[in-house]
């Protein structure tokens, strides 16, 4: 790579950061509402399920929009990467999308249905769980690398299906279930909140175990990642990431014990972001590991600039009204609220 520190160097870096932000927003926001869906079958009764669903009903649609921005952002800034990743991860992408279809319509159908209500509860729980699982598989499939020849995907339709990717799938299900449970601690009251708290205490250690497995597996299986983490001086710069993770996990545990309502949720967001940062450190600057970097897959500068101008103005406005809506629906879920 030639060292030309100009616009063509900066733009892809800015865009990879923006993309990372969009995906992080997605993981946190849709993470808790998918997680709530994963926990659906464990609710005590239908009333509690209504309460759970109402806690995210005003937000889920906006949350899922970040997924479109993630996919759209990849197409905008890195069309070549988009055109390689999507065919490479074809089946998990399709499975995830279909799971989201089932889950998304269940929000509305479940309220309108009466005798078939339980079917939409199943569809909601199943769709949420499968969508989370395949998002984990996508993550694993991406981290483990994609076979590329002549700027196109050159592998088979099942290349992604490795034990590593499947473990990542289960890990994400556990992670989303955790953030879903601390969301419910914050948004529900009484028995429902207590059950959510108990569940979070089971899920937190499970998630830490998965984080440990993935953190050990990646450097062992992929030497390029080991090189990133375990050579000096990187080792010293990067060591705080796992250490802070452990400290924060302990904090979340204590907050759950002490009965805090909001802190566990924000603590788990912190855990997610730290894990995410770890993956970013392992991957950057590859967008198609281990072949193509962000610079090699970037869109035409004119396209990146055109989109950047709009993003700089629009993103703060979007974040503003999203915060406004969350603030508007702050506090515990009120019963029987809505248009139904």
């Amino acid at each position: 790579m030639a060292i030309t520190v100009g616009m063509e160097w900066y733009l892809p870096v800015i865009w990879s950061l923006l993309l990372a932000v969009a995906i992080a927003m997605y993981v946190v926001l849709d993470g808790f509402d998918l997680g709530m869906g994963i926990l659906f079958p464990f609710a005590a009764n239908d009333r509690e399920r209504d309460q759970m669903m109402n806690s995210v009903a005003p937000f889920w649609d906006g949350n899922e929009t970040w997924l479109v921005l993630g996919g759209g952002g990849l197409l905008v800034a890195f069309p070549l990467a988009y055109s390689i990743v999507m065919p490479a991860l074809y089946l998990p992408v399709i499975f995830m999308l279909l799971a989201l279809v089932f889950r998304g319509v269940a929000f509305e159908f479940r309220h309108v249905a009466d005798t078939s209500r339980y079917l939409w509860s199943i569809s909601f729980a199943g769709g949420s769980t499968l969508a989370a699982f395949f998002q984990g598989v996508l993550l694993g499939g991406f981290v483990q690398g994609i076979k590329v020849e002549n700027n196109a995907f050159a592998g088979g339709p099942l290349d992604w299906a490795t034990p590593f990717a499947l473990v990542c799938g289960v890990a994400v299900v556990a992670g989303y279930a955790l953030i879903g449970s601390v969301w419910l601690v914050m948004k529900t009251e009484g028995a429902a909140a207590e059950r959510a708290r108990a569940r979070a205490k089971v899920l937190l250690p499970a998630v830490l175990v998965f984080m440990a497995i993935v953190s050990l597996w990646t450097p062992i299986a992929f030497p390029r990642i080991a090189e990133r983490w375990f050579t000096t001086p990187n080792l010293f710069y990067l060591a705080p990431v796992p250490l802070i993770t452990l400290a924060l996990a302990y904090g979340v545990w204590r907050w759950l014990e002490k009965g805090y309502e909001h802190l566990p949720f924000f603590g788990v967001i912190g855990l997610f972001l730290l894990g995410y940062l770890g993956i970013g450190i392992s991957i950057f600057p590859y967008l198609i590991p281990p072949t193509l970097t962000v610079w090699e897959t970037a869109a035409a500068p004119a396209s990146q600039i055109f989109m950047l101008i709009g993003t700089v103005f629009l993103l703060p406005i979007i974040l503003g009204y999203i915060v406004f809506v969350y603030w508007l629906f702050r506090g515990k879920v009120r019963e029987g609220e809505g248009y139904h």
Partner: protein
Amino acid sequence: MEFDPILLARIQFAFTVSFHVIFPSFTIGLAAYIATLEVLWIATGHERYHRIARFFTKIFAVSFAMGVVSGIVLSYQFGTNWSRFAHVGGNVIGPLIGYEVLTAFFLEATFLGIMLFGWNRVPRGLHVFACVMVAAGTSLSAFWILAANSWMQTPAGYELIDGIAHPTDWLTVIFNPSFPYRFAHMVTACYLTTAFVVLAVGARYVYAGRYPEDGRTMMRMAIGLIAILAPVQAFIGDSHGLNTLEHQPAKIAAIEAHWGSSEDIGGSVPLVLFAIPNEETETNDYQIEIPYLGSLILTHSLDGKIKGLKEFAREDRPPVAIPFFAFRIMVGLGLLMIAVGWLGAFLLWRRRLFETDWYLAPLQHIWPIGFVTILAGWFVTEVGRQPYVIYGVLRTEDAISPVAGWALATSLALFVLVYAVVFSGGIYYINRLIAKGPEGAALDPPEGVPNRPLASAHKATRAAINAREE
């Protein structure tokens, strides 16, 4: 078993896009309708507008959910099924989709929360504002997606470098030659589609004597809109046709099933009313035609010439039968819309609208007309663009992803299965909401008050209700 990836990818895209297009077309119109009702409610204080708005909000919520989930699928299909297209056109198409997400999707998805769940929680003004924002979001979304689609039809403002499109002028990219026509045509189609659903629902209530007051308001508003917009749409469509003749002559030739050049058939082009286009013999079987009319419609002159299909190389011609028949369905239904709108306006003027059974009875079943018309129009324009995905730049067969045929076949089978279950469910539930009626949407639903029984559909009862509420 061997699978043809191109055919499978095309079927899959046609299938998913056809399902998807139905919901936004309905919700774009419906969001505007709900916002209008809300503004009227604030302005006039009539509770009726609020009641109707709440009623349609429930239907909106179900349709919007189906539009969102099927739309997310589409946003990823550019990559999964058409990755070569994403690479070649990404520099241009990407930002258009990106702006759609930033300006439209977030707006509608975020304010939807207030629209659906804020009834008792936020001040009236803020709620109306949320409804207006949702409506604005859906329309902005149409703006960007049609800019992208139009660019694929009539690409402009770009240059090709190593076979990859690079933008040179964004205003030209967005406002490409066919964009204004396509955008106006589509948005008008959305409003008409929604108006016909509102009209059918209103007619159903008026005819059955249930919620007659609300039903009449729905009918009045819908007929007013249709009587004006349906003829306007015919005019926009005609202008769009002229634009297509200029930029995509092969598409027009296919729509008209017009094979030879004008000279072959004596200077002017007839309008083919019916025929079975035969691509083997390059002629039409069983043709019924009106002389000169083709020239008159397409060129606005009696001896205007248009290019025939035979003047294009075989591999550059679109398939003929689909655009030909779909176009006739679209225009036929469009004319029916004008007739229904004007007849309704006439009856309204004569104060006979709500008593004219022969008009009301079939009207209850007219709700799909807009959806069918839009699908027909969609097929005309998309199939007519073939064999290109970006007209004149990238052929469909070169746009495909490197994905194995069996993987495409699997995903297609899953899409058909899932969509069949999910969307038939949605239509069933919407129908149930309509059957329940607006009373269920009242702020405090009265317990134990049954809906007026269908028996009151009896003419005398209905006349009495009408007389009382006149």
